């Protein structure tokens, strides 16, 4: 298992290895801040500014992760960049269409979804579609 993991790490490009290392701390911070946010939603006594700060804190960790991703995009080679940009473009297109469909269905009164669920579903759709298309593109050029 360790050998398999070591072989996987060796197969990664230097830019991707740097990105994985750089995104470790912001990922852990995001999980911690998301847990803090979950805890804060059940606390009635917190003052409003603190509640706002705790609610928005996970976004800062995401911004840190995104900065690491942008550095990876700058440092990776041209095929990696082509794969990443292709996956991002497809994922953005899929989410845009889903967002438009949800907006029109809600506007027409044909759906009764909460904004919280719509936002969470769109975020999940973005991540899943990006990951699937990226995997498919990697297989295509393998």
């Amino acid at each position, binding site marked *: 298992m360790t050998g398999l993991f070591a072989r996987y790490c060796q197969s990664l490009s230097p830019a991707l290895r740097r990105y994985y290392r750089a995104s470790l701390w912001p990922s852990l911070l995001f999980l911690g801040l998301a847990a803090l946010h979950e805890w804060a939603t059940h606390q009635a006594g917190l003052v409003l500014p603190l509640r706002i700060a705790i609610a928005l804190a996970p976004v800062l960790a995401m911004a840190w992760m995104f900065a690491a991703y942008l550095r990876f995009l700058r440092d990776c*080679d041209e*095929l990696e960049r082509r794969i990443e940009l292709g996956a991002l473009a497809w994922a953005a297109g899929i989410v845009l269409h889903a967002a438009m469909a949800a907006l029109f269905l809600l506007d027409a009164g044909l759906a009764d979804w909460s904004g919280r669920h719509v936002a969470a579903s769109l975020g999940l759709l973005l991540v899943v579609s990006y990951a699937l298309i990226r995997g498919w593109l990697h297989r295509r*050029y393998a």
Partner: protein
Amino acid sequence: MNNRMRELREAQGWSQGELAERLEVSRQTVNALETGKYDPSLPLAFRIARLFGQSIETLFIPED
């Protein structure tokens, strides 16, 4: 586009990983170039040609 990268790499005795290091690209990129799944940009094509001491025209051969 066809190319002579594999032939020239093997003549040098380099693995795909070693060639990738010399070109500062990933091993996947070298493999995709050798199998014709990906055509390089002009700057990368010049780097490859310079590394093998060849001209671009002798290294990359259009299919038509």
